[in-house]
């Protein structure tokens, strides 16, 4: 056994937790190593001294003070709650529950209003930006005529009639699926979110005819 390993075992030797084999090897090492024997002495001396550490005297009135503290604690635990406190407790809890419900309701209303405000702002901005009256939903020309730029056409999520209209525009070539994708991404980038609408680019009757001839 080397000194390094022997020193590692010295603390365990004090606790007598070494295995028989480890103990024998350590003792054999200690016989031949003065330095480790010295360290072993220090460790055992520390263990002996620790067992003799002076116990601190406790003040004689400790028990009396403890008894008084326990009496006080017991008295507090046993005392009935005063009526004023009971009333305040009785009112405080329902009031808190009511306030929580109110916050939830107001929060939901606020969130709903904000969402719809965004939508309204989007429509307003379309109107002013293009100088054109936006057409969306069923107000779009049902005959499938070419639509001016800035027209708003539903993509998804509208009633079946509107969906049909959208499909017709796609079929007649007034718009292509590319436009749908492009328009949706434009709307997304504006963070206005009505992903069910998009803005048509200028599509003239000539372009429609040209597209139809391909």
């Amino acid at each position, binding site marked *: 056994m080397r000194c390094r390993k022997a020193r590692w075992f010295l*603390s*365990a030797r*004090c*606790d007598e*937790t070494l295995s028989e084999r480890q103990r024998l090897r350590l003792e054999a090492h200690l016989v031949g190593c003065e330095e480790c024997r*010295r*360290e072993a*002495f*220090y*460790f055992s*001396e*520390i*263990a002996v*001294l*620790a*067992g*003799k*550490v*002076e*116990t*601190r005297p*406790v*003040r004689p009135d*400790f*028990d009396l*003070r*403890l008894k008084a*503290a*326990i009496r006080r*604690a017991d008295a507090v*635990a046993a005392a009935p709650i005063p009526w004023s406190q009971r009333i305040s407790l009785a009112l405080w809890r329902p009031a808190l529950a009511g306030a929580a419900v109110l916050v939830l309701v107001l929060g939901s209303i606020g969130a709903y209003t904000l969402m719809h405000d965004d939508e309204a702002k989007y429509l307003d901005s379309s109107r002013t930006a293009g100088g054109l009256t936006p057409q969306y939903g069923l107000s779009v020309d049902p005959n499938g005529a070419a639509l001016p730029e800035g027209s708003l056409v539903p993509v998804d999520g509208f009633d079946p009639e509107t969906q049909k209209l959208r499909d017709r525009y796609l079929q007649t070539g007034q718009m292509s699926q590319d436009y749908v994708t492009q328009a949706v991404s434009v709307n997304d980038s504006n963070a206005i979110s009505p992903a069910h609408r998009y803005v048509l680019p200028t599509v003239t009757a000539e372009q429609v005819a040209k597209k139809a001839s391909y």
Partner: protein
Amino acid sequence: METAKAIDHALMRRVQKDEYEAFEELVDRYKSRLVNLIYRMLGDQNEAEDLVQETFLRVWTHRQDYDFSYCLSTWIYTIALNLAKNELRKRRKFKFFSLLDMSEKGIEIPDPKLGPSALGHMLEGAIAKLPVTYKEAFMLRDVEQLPYEEVAQILGVPLGTVKSRVNRARAVLKDELKPKLEQTRALSQGSLVPVRAM
């Protein structure tokens, strides 16, 4: 012969039936050990007694919550040590120093020249200088002589960690007391006789 654990459990059963005499017996069994431990942690006798009082107060208040699958000593030591650690945390937070505790950690370190009996006092001074984690492990294991397993339960750390902390604490103390220990060793071997200069 009844073991300490069996005696503690018998007392605790009586305490749970609100027998104050049994509680007093329990207090007598533990108060000195707890004051000793907390004093070594905080370095203030009055504060140590206050915290031990608080510990017993909690034992009494929560007597019905005691789980008999654990040693009572583990429960009591855990409460006391947690209170001591909270106190130390508070001190660190508010940087509180008592004017009475101007000596190192509040514990007087005796002069090494006082003689062989001073070695025990020197050890106490060296314990006071240990880091808290080493100190609590050393106190519980070597001073209170609790088994490693119980120390691990009280401190809430793995067994290996406790062994390592105790080992390191012993090594630090050994280095701290080396000169004095060497003197003791030489004297015990008769190889060095102190000569007083005339």
